[in-house]
């Protein structure tokens, strides 16, 4: 059964196996081995790996849009950040009276700005189920409105890329304003606990890593299923020959729209899992540069393969951690070089190279 599911797709099987192993073994290593042992993973590494996994989920969401729909979205980071803010708002509400000002009703930054009442859009974020709903609904709604307007009027290619970039840029400017009620420049931070678990505790970090891993595996399988379904076939077809698919009677814009919305929800989940692991969310995450970096992860791994996006995200981010630690100056040179080399010499990414080597066509 299982073998049949992954027939002729050993890469997908391998990636699921590796992810499952990471999700289970790293927490075990942290618990079993004593600090100092070469197999021990510190709480820092656990959070770091958890962060990579959320980035992988984000890259996966972009691969759906770019690799399968052919939409080079330069604003995928916006959905990620919105999901993150929804989670951040829930975490802010959990602080309660433990803030610096100890105000029972308002978060610290609102007390600081001398606000008297909680803005209406903060209502309900005390309850996790509502917050969870918002982590999915807010990115989805934005993607729906934006996508509906854009695809219906057939904005494509470069134009679409540029307006998605403008979208995330506008959101960044908006969230930088204190009047928006999202903490302005500093964003949301100083979180204490999630669902009653202390965020500083090792056990919580392990739990978050496992949730990120599980979410990633589930999302990967769902995306794979989706792309193998009829919808996936139509979407791939319209990527290659949009007008032909339209003439065959498919409503192209609807297909694009649903994939776009689904991907935005995945990005929202990724953002929501990211925030408790790094402990802060601020408007800088909206910056166009961040969204472009996501594109590089997918490009490095190889788009249109799903697992390529996961591998690319983890590789590039691991490289970033190592290089910024060793030689901060080198990082932008490397990132720039990666952009150039991958687009000019490796248009199908590392996975394209691998598939060609093993005798199968790329995209």
């Amino acid at each position, binding site marked *: 059964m299982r073998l049949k599911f992954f027939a002729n797709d050993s890469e997908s099987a391998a990636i699921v196996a590796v992810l499952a192993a990471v999700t289970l073994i790293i927490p075990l290593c942290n618990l079993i081995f004593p600090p100092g042992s070469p197999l021990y993973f510190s709480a820092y590494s656990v959070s770091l790996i958890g962060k990579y996994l959320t980035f992988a989920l984000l890259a996966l969401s972009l691969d759906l849009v770019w690799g399968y729909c052919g939409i*080079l979205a330069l604003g995928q980071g916006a959905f990620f950040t919105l999901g993150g803010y929804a989670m951040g708002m829930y975490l802010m509400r959990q602080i309660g009276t433990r803030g610096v000002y100890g105000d029972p009703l308002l978060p610290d930054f609102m007390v600081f700005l001398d606000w008297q009442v909680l803005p209406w859009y903060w209502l309900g974020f005390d309850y996790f189920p509502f917050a969870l709903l918002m982590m999915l609904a807010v990115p989805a709604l934005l993607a729906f409105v*934006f996508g509906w*307007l*854009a695809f*219906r*009027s*057939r*904005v494509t*290619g*470069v*134009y679409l*890329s*540029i*307006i998605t*970039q*403008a*979208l995330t*840029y*506008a959101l960044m*400017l*908006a969230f*930088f*304003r204190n009047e928006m009620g999202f903490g302005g420049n500093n964003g949301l931070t100083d979180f204490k606990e999630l669902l009653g678990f202390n965020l500083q505790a090792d056990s919580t970090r392990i739990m978050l890593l496992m949730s990120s891993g599980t979410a990633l595996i589930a999302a990967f399988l769902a995306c794979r299923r989706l792309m193998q379904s009829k919808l996936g076939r139509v979407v791939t077809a319209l990527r290659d020959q949009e007008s032909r698919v339209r003439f065959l009677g498919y409503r192209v814009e609807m297909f694009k729209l649903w994939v776009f919305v689904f991907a935005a929800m995945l990005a929202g989940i990724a953002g929501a899992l990211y925030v408790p692991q790094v402990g802060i969310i601020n408007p800088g995450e909206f910056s*166009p*540069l961040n969204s*472009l970096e996501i*594109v*590089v992860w997918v*490009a490095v791994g190889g788009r249109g393969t799903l697992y390529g996006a996961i591998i690319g995200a983890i590789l590039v981010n691991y490289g970033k951690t190592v290089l910024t630690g060793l030689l901060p*100056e080198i990082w*932008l*040179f490397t*990132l*720039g*070089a*990666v*952009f*150039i080399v*991958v*687009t*000019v010499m490796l*248009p199908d990414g590392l996975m394209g190279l691998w598939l060609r080597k093993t005798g199968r066509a790329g995209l």
Partner: protein
Amino acid sequence: MKLHRLLANIVKLLIFPALALSAAAQAQAVEPGVTVPSFSEALTALKDSPLSQRGRAIERFAQIRHPQTLTVLQALLKGNLFVLKNDGRLVIGETENGGYRLWQADTGDSLAAVESSRLDRINLTNRMRSQLRMSIALLQLKATDPEIRLNAVRDLGKNPDDETLSLLKDQSLRENDAAIQQALQLTFALQDLDSSDRALRLAALEALNRQTSPEALNRLRALTRKDANGGYPEQDAQVLKLAKSALVKIEARLQFYAAAETVFFGLSLGAVLVLAAIGLSITFGVMGVINMAHGELMMLGAYTTYVMQQILPNYLGLALLLSIPLAFIISGLTGIVIERGIIRFLYGRPLETLLATFGVSLFLQQTVRSIFSPLNRSVTAPDWMSGSWQVNEYLSLTWNRLYIFIFCLLVFTLLLQILRRTRLGLEVRAVAQNRNMAKAMGIPVARVDAMTFGLGSGVAGVAGVALSQITNVGPNLGQAYIVDSFMVVVFGGVGNLWGTLVAGFILGIANKVLEPFAGAVLAKILVLVFIILFIQKRPRGLFPQKGRAAEA
């Protein structure tokens, strides 16, 4: 004029010995105006007179026509007139490095600097100070520089007594400068408004109709304000009516100036946007290439200006002018290298060029950061670029923005002519319309591509020179403009220089019109949202390409 001065000198020479002879006798109680004391006598009186007599001494001194009179009075007012303790000479001193730099009061000759302990300041009372201000203003009325005269008229007109008024009336008879005449008429009108003569008041209101100064505005507002009972303190209905109509007129003029200022700010912002976007418009429109490194090419231009100023620190203006062609060459060559090295492998894959050029932009940013440090560098504006052009009290236009606006139009015109009239322009247009056909006709497409990209990049460098005059030069300079300039190109319609120009100005003005209501950031967000919505409606921009060119 010369003859006049010559005569005056002869008279002075004749009178001077006589005055000197009788100086000792006259130094004591002589009524002012009866006999005019000599310059040196009056000057000595300034320091020798007791504080109670000093006011009169100042008055007498101020009546003497001498090149140093004004300087001495101004120094006295500022507390810079001193007596040297050792020899009792009167000197003018200005603080410098803890001590005082000195000039001889009667001749203006420079003297050796001394410490403050060796000087005695000539003290003043507040009454003397206001008297001094008046005397200085009266002296300045006779200055040849109209700027000085205008300030003097304004000072004197603040609370004039009868004597000053008659002086000002004399001045208005011989004054030729329009701005000074305007200020004089304002003083008279405000004065007449208080008179008991009804005809004078009505005439004054007529005159105020033509004024736009804050004094006139405040006065008219006070006159037409209702008191606590809801009635008007002003009883004369005719006066009230005229005052109201004058007020409306002045306010309308003020609104006009405010609008003119907004339009100017909008146009200058628009000029910056157009400069930033126009090179992009060429590469994007002609080659279909998205150059994300465009902002960094502007940054190179800005740094070129900075380096030129470091090389020629004493010739800022020359450095600025030289950096225009230099920035064009540096950015243009960089652009050609980018095109030959990367972009030519990516034709027909616009999304990939976007990514690759973004990589280039990161590269350039980090290079500049490594060479010049991540800190902002400031480029000094040459004299003729700083300051502003004061159109009137309500409208002043800064020179640097005015120059950038003109510069933008020049660059635009030049570019338009290059595309229209030169061989290169013809080839560029041919390739833009139909690449394959152009190739078949024997146009060296690869060379044209490189030249087009070089041209677009060079214009970006020139834009960077302009930007260096209004913003800090730093590694992030390009990033700040990249989203904006893409918006301008897309809004205006790709491949259309006129579209870029119109779009840049529209967006600039829209930004500045929205700013007072929404604040700078929100205005920017609103404009971005507007463009996003606009593109949904007209995906090809304001002026879409028509015909077969649009199919590509």
